[in-house]
């Protein structure tokens, strides 16, 4: 029963995040979607990753979104889509259908994750590559934050010179 409620909430919040007219409201709905995803991860028996998703997905990313929207300013979202909506919906149905076929028929969920160990310290002892990847990702992220923050600097300098 809990799963049905959480899944319906995820779908509803995702649709609201995509269709809302204001960017700020869209970011808030994305945060709610993230929190519900964290709840579903917890229900599936992965509490550690649920906590990380809740703090990073619903916390950090939302703060970054609000920050970026504040810097760049709200822009009216009544632009015409690039491709006609029926074509977009058709492509979405095709993509989702193929994903569902893969999930159900080819047994991906049954054979994707097979390893000999079940220790909780698996990340630190068996998956060095992931850790190196994460370190480099975090370095890229720091550079990205610098990119966000450096947006307003030139104008300030000009004001000082005047």
């Amino acid at each position, binding site marked *: 029963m809990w799963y*049905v409620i*959480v*899944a319906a909430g995820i*779908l509803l919040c*995702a*649709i609201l*995040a*995509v269709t809302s007219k204001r*960017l700020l409201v*869209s970011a808030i709905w*994305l945060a709610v*979607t993230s929190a519900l*995803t964290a709840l*579903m*991860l917890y229900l*599936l*028996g*992965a509490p550690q*990753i649920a906590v*990380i*998703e809740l703090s*990073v*997905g619903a916390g*950090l*990313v939302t703060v*970054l*979104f609000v920050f*970026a*929207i504040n810097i*760049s*300013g709200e*822009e009216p979202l009544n*632009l015409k*889509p*690039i*491709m006609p*909506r029926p074509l*977009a*919906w058709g492509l*979405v*149905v095709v993509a*989702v259908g193929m*994903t*569902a076929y893969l999930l159900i028929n080819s047994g991906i*969920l049954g054979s*994707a*994750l097979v390893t000999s160990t*079940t*220790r909780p310290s*698996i*990340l630190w002892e068996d998956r060095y590559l992931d850790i190196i*990847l*994460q370190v480099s*990702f975090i370095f*890229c*992220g720091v550079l*990205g934050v610098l*990119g*966000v923050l450096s*947006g307003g600097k030139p104008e300030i300098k000009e004001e000082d010179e005047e």
Partner: protein
Amino acid sequence: MNLPIPFIVGLAILSLAGVGFYCLLATRNLIKVIVGLQLIVKGVMLTFVLAGNLNDQVSLAQSMALTVIVADTIVAVVGLALAVQIRHKLGTLDTKALSSLKR
């Protein structure tokens, strides 16, 4: 109504992926594009944990999902930085305006 749990979680995964795909296809605002990417990645993360849950390999699934979360956050940060810089340079967040780079 007594649906099996993997079926319900699978529906949630497919709905997240579908809404994210639609957002990527139909929207022209750069920040909305990043919202769509985030939705798809949340679906991927749920898929990892569901697969781990079905195979009693939750710890391996969690380590993979952690990598996905880190990568997803970094993609969001870099994308937002790009959006802010484009807004400063071109004065708009419209993806069609980016074609002015060709001229």
